[in-house]
């Protein structure tokens, strides 16, 4: 299973943190620090995998953002790399040419999209259409419900 996913910028600013196992705030802060220093120090064209404690860390850079996913030791690195890519595709489909700013200003949406894709550190749905359908349906449902419910009283 996946243990956590972090998104941070080239300057090391954290943009999204998802923890799939319970962890104290102190532990989280330490991991965030370790991950950012470790990943940001990597040379260009290095491989996308690192060993860290008893976990494998899979990271990939998209434009100004690093996506950093920690998986358990027996898990498959390549497929984890594509988990990251699929998430980027989902963000891209939702935001349309997603950029770091989209994730900063709509952080909650980035979390919602992630929840549709992964739950408890496992993949829930790999189909882009299905994930997007439920995200868009949620968006739609929300707007519709708001409009549906917000007619002035009579």
């Amino acid at each position, binding site marked *: *299973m996946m243990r956590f996913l972090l998104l941070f910028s080239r300057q090391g600013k954290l943009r999204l943190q998802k923890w799939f196992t*319970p962890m104290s705030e102190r532990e989280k802060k330490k991991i965030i620090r370790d991950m950012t220093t*470790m990943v*940001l*120090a*990597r040379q*260009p*064209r290095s*491989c*996308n*995998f*690192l*060993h*860290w404690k008893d976990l494998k860390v899979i990271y*990939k850079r*998209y*434009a100004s953002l690093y996506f950093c996913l920690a998986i358990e030791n*027996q898990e*498959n*690195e*390549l*497929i984890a*790399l*594509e988990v990251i*890519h699929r998430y980027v595709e989902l963000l891209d*489909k939702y*935001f*349309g*040419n*997603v950029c770091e*700013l*989209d994730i*900063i*200003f*709509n*952080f*909650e*949406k980035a979390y*919602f999209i992630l929840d549709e894709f992964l739950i*408890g550190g*496992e*993949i*829930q*749905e*790999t*189909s882009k259409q*299905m994930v997007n359908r439920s995200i868009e*349906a*949620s968006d*739609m*449902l*929300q*707007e*519709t*419900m*708001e409009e*549906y*419910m917000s*007619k002035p009283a*009579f």
Partner: protein
Amino acid sequence: MPAVSKGDGMRGLAVFISDIRNCKSKEAEIKRINKELANIRSKFKGDKALDGYSKKKYVCKLLFIFLLGHDIDFGHMEAVNLLSSNKYTEKQIGYLFISVLVNSNSELIRLINNAIKNDLSSRNPTFMCLALHCIANVGSREMAEAFASEIPRILVAGDTMDSVKQSAALCLLRLYKTSPDLVLMGEWTSRVVHLLNDQHMGVVTAAISLITCLSQKNPDEFKTCVSLAVSRLSRIVSSASTDLQDYTYYFVPAPWLSCKLLRLLQCYPPPEDGAVKGRLVECLETILNKAQEPPKSKKVQHSNAKNAILFEAISLIIHYDSEPNLLVRACNQLGQFLQHRETNLRYLALESMCTLASSEFSHEAVKTHIETVINALKTERDVSVRQRAADLLYAMCDRSNAKQIVAEMLSYLETADYSIREEMVLKVAILAEKYAVDYSWYVDTILNLIRIAGDYVSEEVWYRVIQIVINRDDVQGYAAKTVFEALQAPACHENMVKVGGYILGEFGNLIAGDPRSSPLVQFNLLHSKFHLCSVPTRALLLSAYIKFINLFPETKATIQEVLRCDSQIRNSDVELQQRAVEYLKLSSIASTDVLATVLEEMPPFPERESSILAKLKKKKGPGAVSVPDLEDGKREGGELNGGGERGPDSAAMSASNASTPSPSADLLGMRSAAPMSAAPTSAGSLLVDVFSEAGPAAPSAAVNDDGFLRDLEPPTETSGLSSELQTPVDSPFNASSRRFVCKNNGVLFENQLLQIGIKSEYRQNLGRMYLFYGNKTSVQFASFTTTVSCPGELQSHILSILRATKPVEPVVEGGAQIQQVLNIECLTDFSEAPLLNIKFRYGGALQNLSLKLPVTINKFFQPTEMTSHDFFQRWKQLSQPQQEAQKIFKANHSMDTEVLKAKLLGLGTALLDDVDPNPENYVCAGVIQTKGQQVGCLLRLEPNGQAQMYRLTLRCSKDSVSLRLCELLAQQF
């Protein structure tokens, strides 16, 4: 404010976020945050009740602040309140807040669980999924206690939506991991296993994670999953790259599911059933074959997905370790990857070969790649890859290549990254000991290790070399000679001094014959290092000195002088002082015999597990170490007991810097973003699939609809109609036709002379109406004629053919009844009713009646059942202003629930439960069938009992229908 906010942008939130971004310093940021916190606190505490939107906005701001790394100590209650909101986004933000900031506050947990319980039983799939995500995200014991028995039910229930099943499977997995005692699969086991057969690939993908975890824990109960997994895998592997539609990822069919299936199979030994096994071997062969095929795409995603499956298949082959043919093929495949231009593949090939090296079938095949691996160790730019190469060298090492591998590793050590030096040292030390044919080579190697990487030589390593030298007398002389030479170096590592002190103290006599290493020379050499050493080393040297006194009586005076000197005998360190005093006394008092007994040569150490191996094991976890035990190991890999007998700080050291980044790395790792294809979504499809049941005719109809509607005059009451009538249609007649909106049979008209009854039935866009004319008098009606006319435009909208079952009877006897049948076809929607004109003579007077026939558009309704989710989706799709018609009106009839329900059902639509968040309201859906098109209609009726009012809202795919239905129905309630 930047215009980057999407969906229901919360303006206040966006402003706040950009304020934070504009803060020039950490202090400014904290100030801004504190201001915001004060504001939110006052809003939450204020007298004015906050509306849902504001609550959502503030909770979202708090969440943002928390995610920035600041503490949040309030707002939990407001977030919990949002959970019970009916508005999706409010609920969603509430759940997000709870998931991120879960608090063990028991009072809150109870409230949260309550909200979750409500959502789970709401039967609204979106709400259910939110609740399940929350349980999975929090995964606390309390939640497990509350829901562990409910979720399996949701998972296997026949009527659960696929998306809910997916969430439920993973939610259950999460609870199982936190509280396995609370998740009792028992009766559900076989149904859960059979989810592997589910038609929906998403359900299988989610369920397989659960099944894999359960299989690991209860392999016997889940054994049936093996054959199911094999057949599923076989279907995927043999499918064409487009068969699985959206589950195909860059031309690779279902890569995630394939990997998961292969991993599930790794929980079990090879299938016993020959047929299943044959099928599986076939799959594995196909996967290996596909690796040789030219890629279907140049995108890295394609090769990654394909190779992910390949590596997982190789893992399974290694796990079975029973198919020599497959193992060798796997090894050859990995051999190709060793020289691949993709760094990732080289890395993974090295890693995967490590495990392959441990199989007796493939060990030799792995060994053939030694040159490539050594080359990787020397030339790879990436330290992680070099490390994997070092691991593989370690794994493939055996007696035949040990010297070469150890030499390569030693020379790599000179330039190795600091982060991996300690581990490298351990590995070299282990290999050197394990494959030492002559122990002089071993001693040389260890001393080399100390020379090259002294700082990284842990205590275990030098303890071990001493143990071995002491236990093997054939190497003692050589060891003494070598260490003596090593100590000649002007700067030598403290670890070298330790080893040297110990060995010379024991075996210095073996080289004392050579004048170049006479006792005094040896002593002076050791003592020249003394002052540069730390306390423990000095203590060790003092012990060596007293041993010298025993070995070489001629050194006694010199050494006693050293011991006697103030810096020893009055040393501030207690240990050193004590040793100096005691050794001095011992050397002065004891007789030669006593001295020889006390300072006898150390007895051999009991043969035991190398403490180094134990240490490496601790560092890397089991498995990593047992590899070289493959052959001729002196010990059983599985029975290693931690032999770190003397190093109190070994644990602290082993936890050290395996992950320190290389300081030389530069920060500008440029890698351009992968191009992301935004698949164009076909626009304008809103109308087309409003009703999926609409069938193939619908799309074209809907497309025409648009243009057609634009040409249409706004529907108006054809006011000219009534003037054409000889007898104006008076209100009672109108009222009577109204009664038939919601029913099909009854008395249409009655006066003293005549009663007209009708019976009608409708199917699709066709209807048949039976008209019964009854003469209530005892006198016959003469010249009885009836005509049906469709005034004005209606002619083109409705086709009605009146035909009598019998030839038209111009005479209706007194007390008799005649019957006519009217066939009706709805061509397109209409708002006026056809007119029935009846003429007859009664007692000489000409009677002329004009009636509206109760044919209304709603008669052509087909009811449509749908879920709340679908309802709102369609509601949304019908959001053009003209598509909605609304009326607010006073109740004219009973507002009783049952009466209202009967009326709504009579209307011809489906009455939908559990759609409207307000249970007082009624929601209906149906499709109106006309010849040319189908019109989807949604209806919502909101009664207000207090005011005795209704609000009726109609949304139809055709504007005119909305208007007409709204008019018709407003008169019904």
